[in-house]
Structure formats: C-alpha cells, structure tokens
C-alpha cells in the first residue's frame, strides 16, 4: 500500500464532512428525521400520507447543491471509470442492497455511527469490506 498524496485532500474532506454532519443535525433537530438518503428515496417510491413533503424538499435541496457550486464558479469534480453496463449493474446492486440493509453511507455510516448503533456499525463494516473487496478484484485481480 502506498498513499496517493496527489489526490489526498484532508482539509476539504474534513470541511465537507462537517457540512454533512451539520446537514444531518439540521434534519434531525428541526424535522425529527434521520438523514439517510436511500431511506428518503425509498420512502418516495412507496409514498405514505404526510411523508412525502419533507422528502421532496430534502432531495430538491440536494439537487440545488451543484447549481449553487456553479454560481460560486466551482465545477463538480468527477472521475468515472465505469462504463454504462457496469454502472447499471452497480446501480441495481446499490438500490436492492440499501433497501434490504435499510441504509447506505449516510444513514448507517454517518447517522448510525453518530448514535453508536450496533446495527449501523455492522452494516458499515459490511459495505466497507464488500467495497474494498470489489475494488481489489476489479483493479488488481482481473
């Protein structure tokens, strides 16, 4: 293992992480809701009375973020190596996996670990390990 110093961004990542934490705190303390993106989306696909308004508003806020960055003159950096077929399979796996696992990086990884939930710790360990194993296979074994 070597450290990729050229892409390493400790301060931006720490600052962005703090913003994510502040956003989760806002939704939790103002709306009484946990900021789990997969759960928020899933709730929109199976809508219940009185449950859609705040979800739509939150997703609209997410969608507005790149526009605000654009106004600030900042492009959204992205390097996407996967081709369309791989992206489709990956998307399916993420949709099904987060539904059965009742959460993703935000719900389990950020909110769950913040409240020291054993369930979320198990889920986070599982998706981290599976992600690392997958990258290892794709980058180094195939």
């Amino acid at each position, binding site marked *: 293992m070597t450290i990729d110093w050229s892409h390493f961004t400790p301060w931006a990542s720490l600052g962005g992480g703090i913003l994510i934490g502040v956003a989760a705190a806002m939704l939790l303390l103002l709306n009484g809701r946990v900021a789990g993106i997969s759960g928020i989306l899933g709730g929109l696909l199976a809508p219940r009375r009185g449950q859609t308004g705040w979800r739509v508003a939150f997703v609209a806020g997410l969608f507005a973020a790149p526009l605000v960055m654009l106004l600030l003159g900042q492009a959204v950096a992205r*390097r996407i190596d996967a081709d369309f077929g791989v992206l489709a399979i*990956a998307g399916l796996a993420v949709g099904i996996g987060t539904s059965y696992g009742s959460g993703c990086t935000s719900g389990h990884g950020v909110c769950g670990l913040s409240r020291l939930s054993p369930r979320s710790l198990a889920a986070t360990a599982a998706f981290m390990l599976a992600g690392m194993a997958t990258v290892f296979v794709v980058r180094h074994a195939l």
Partner: protein
Amino acid sequence: MKALAAFLAGLVFGLGLIVSGMTDPGKVIGFLDFAGDWDPSLAFVMAGAILVGFFAFMIAHRRTRSFLGGAMHLPHRSDVDHRLVGGSLVFGIGWGLAGFCPGPALVSFAAGEEKAAIFVAAMLIGMLVYAAAERFIHEPRRRTSPR
C-alpha cells in the same frame, strides 16, 4: 417552515458531498483501494460528519419533539440480522463497482452527469424491485407462516 428546513438540510448535505470529494467516484474508489494508491480522504469526511452528528444525536435523544414541533422519528432497532448484513454486502459491491453511493449519485445526476443518470435509474429500479418483493413475496409469507 418544515419543508424549508428540509430543503436547506438537503442543500447543505449536497454542498458537503461536493466539497468533501464524495461526488467524485475516482476518489471513493481511491479510498477503497487499499492494495493500490490509497487516498485516505474519505476517512476525514466520516470523521468530520460523525463529530457533528454525535452531538446532534446526543441532543436528539433527550428530546421528545423536534425544534419545529414535530415528533422525533429515531431508529429503535438494534438487532443485527441476515437482511442487514446481506443487503449491506450487496450495496458495498455496487459501491465498489461504480464509486457512487445514493447521495453523491443524486448530486452528480443533478450536475448533468449522464453516467450518474444511468446509475440513479438502475438504483431506483432496484428499490422498486425490493418494494415489489416485499409486497408480493416477503409480506404474504410472513402473514401465512405460523407463529
């Protein structure tokens, strides 16, 4: 007021994802790639978010109503079952393949990235498949199975 609060929370969340580098799949895969050139940045994202989130949940657990006056919807389960671990493993495989998880994929999609659009479409189909399976396979079986 509640819708505005949720919108602002979503906006700040999205800005955090962009600033932190989470919306760059190359960076996510760089973090998951222990055997290659490892980019530890995402550990800093988690640390920053959990640092704030820890105190937020400490306050939340002491309250019965939110600051805008609604009920607190806090998770209450603590059991670790096969669905949780199996689902999370499948999610991790998809995450490692694309470098996208749900939040950053939505933000990249909104930024006009067509590869993110494919991912988001497939992810929504996956969620619908789950919803259908819940309704037609798991739910009826649970209802008819003896206690």
